[in-house]
């Protein structure tokens, strides 16, 4: 187990470092001089040169990268060109609303997708199965931002139950905050819920066909015990990986759903960065996003290894 953990974490760190190199190089390929963008086109060449010097753009690439990496490790991602503040501060402010949305969406997906999949898998052809199939069919086609727009139209505009856009901090007014969170949460989580429902359904149906389930039934266990203790535990192990891999999709889905609901967060920030050609901002955000992504995937692998010892060796 120990060497498995070490190997997996070393891989994760390597991926993050390589990805940060890639982001850094790509950001340098972007046409246009960031210094010129900062001071404006009517500035004197001396001013531009001074800014280049201050941003460290005159040093060799390797040194620029090393400087940036050392700063990034201390949560210092340099100044944002378009916003005029530190990138680290901007991300700190945006992290909470984004995390809130991602966690809520994920919980929704788990709480909705897994029971639906179980109901469908235990009784194929039953009512639950039809519900699950219908739900996954629709969600398979509908992009999350379209779902968000349709939700706004029905729940907010037509019925007036929920506020259209915006966000209230959860510590200020919890009830209002939840009202603002419901629609974005569904829009972010529905796709993941559908994937989980489908996967859980298939996994349960497969497990119920296994010999050990037949043995459990043959020795006279009650159906409850057979399903809960023998089938379910084995059926849900592979779900861990699928569920964890979905977090990445969820994060990139949240980027666009945040824009639909005009919520502050990583999504709005990254769009602002792209439109403002703010390379420091984008660079910092991408590296943070990749780190989150890799950490989550690594944890998923480790968790899988804990749940299923066969994985550790291969």
């Amino acid at each position, binding site marked *: 187990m120990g060497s498995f953990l070490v190997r997996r974490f070393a891989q994760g760190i390597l*991926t993050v470092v390589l990805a940060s190199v890639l982001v850094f190089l790509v950001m340098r390929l972007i046409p246009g001089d960031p210094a010129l963008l900062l001071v404006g086109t009517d500035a004197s060449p001396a001013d531009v040169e001074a800014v280049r010097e201050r941003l460290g753009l005159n040093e060799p690439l390797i040194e620029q990268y090393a400087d940036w990496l050392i700063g990034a490790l201390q949560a210092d991602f340099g100044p944002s060109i378009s916003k005029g503040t530190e990138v680290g501060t901007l991300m700190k402010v945006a992290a909470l609303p984004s995390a809130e949305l991602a966690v809520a969406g994920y919980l929704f997906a788990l709480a909705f997708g897994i029971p639906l999949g179980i109901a469908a898998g235990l009784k194929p052809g039953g009512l639950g199965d039809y519900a699950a199939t219908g739900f996954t069919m629709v969600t398979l*086609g509908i992009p999350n*931002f379209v779902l968000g727009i349709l939700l706004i139209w029905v729940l907010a505009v037509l019925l007036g139950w929920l506020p259209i856009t915006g966000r209230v901090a959860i510590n200020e007014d919890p009830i209002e905050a939840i009202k603002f969170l419901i629609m974005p949460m569904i829009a972010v989580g529905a796709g993941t819920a559908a994937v989980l429902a489908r996967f859980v359904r298939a996994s349960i149906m497969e497990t119920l066909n296994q010999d050990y389930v037949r043995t459990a039934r043959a020795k006279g266990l009650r159906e409850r015990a057979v399903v809960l203790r023998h089938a379910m535990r084995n059926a849900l192990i592979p779900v861990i990986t699928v569920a964890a891999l979905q977090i990445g999709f969820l994060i990139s889905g949240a980027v666009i759903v945040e824009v639909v609901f005009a919520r502050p967060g990583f999504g709005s920030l*990254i*769009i602002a960065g792209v439109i403002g050609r703010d390379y420091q901002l984008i660079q910092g955000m991408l590296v943070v996003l990749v780190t989150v992504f890799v950490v989550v995937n690594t944890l998923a692998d480790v968790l899988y290894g804990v749940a299923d010892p066969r994985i550790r060796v291969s």
Partner: protein
Amino acid sequence: MSDIPPSLVVAEAADRVQFDVYGLPVRASWRRRGLRLLRQHPLGAFGLFVALFVIFLAAFGPLLTTDPAAVSAEILAGPSGEHWFGTDRLGRDYFARVIAGARLSMSLALGAMLIGVSAALVLGMVSAYAKGAVDLLLQRVIDMMLAFPGLVLLLLLAQVIGRGWQSVALGMGIIFSVSMVRIIRASTLSTLAESYVEAARIVGASPYRILWRHVLPNMGPPLLIYVTTLLGAAILFEGALSFLGLGVPPPEPSWGRMLTEARTLWKYPHLSIFPGVAMTIAVLGFNLVGDSIRDILDPRLRGLT
């Protein structure tokens, strides 16, 4: 079985399988086998119908509608006999614009798919054939790119290669190729281990000839599974990019941009419903076809993702 008269069983079987003069079963005709596949996969058949319909609209629809750019005094009108989908805030016919959006979406999707598939084929086959340092380097680069969530990587690429039709197609193509290279590489490796490849090498075939004549023809099934699903993903990505204001710039009508423009006009639901539903139907159609193809070609993956 015992309570069915034997003659009926034979008649039923004879309906499906035909025998030649030696009493061996004859392979059914293409038409018959196609129909059988459609019958066995009703959802896939439905998806295929939808996908073909979307492609048809994209190809010929704009010839049947009025000019999507023609401005009129009828601003923000609801659906009517004259304007099936109503009009937008410049009085342009929304039906014509939704159809024109299908053309943009489909042409971008096809462009991105062609770029993605050819890049993935070249990179995957070369990586597998070259082995050693080239393989290692290429695979690490792919690993790096796979570490990014797709949409985020697309935003990054949009920043570098700019906007416009070609850039969006190129950006999506790169993402698609990244997701396919590994599969191509794995299939190439398994084909290269076949004895007929060894035979080709012994008679002195060049690497180019081996890859082109012996490896490439085996790439069909793994690619086919991906291609239709990618078309659906491309429609989705194009919509998302345009929605964020980073897609193909106006005046070309795009579903994603129509949704953005409708966002402040909540009193006119037709503005968001028609492009939204059009996108959903198109994505659903291609996804259903993709699912069925995967079920047919690789039953082991059934139910996954």
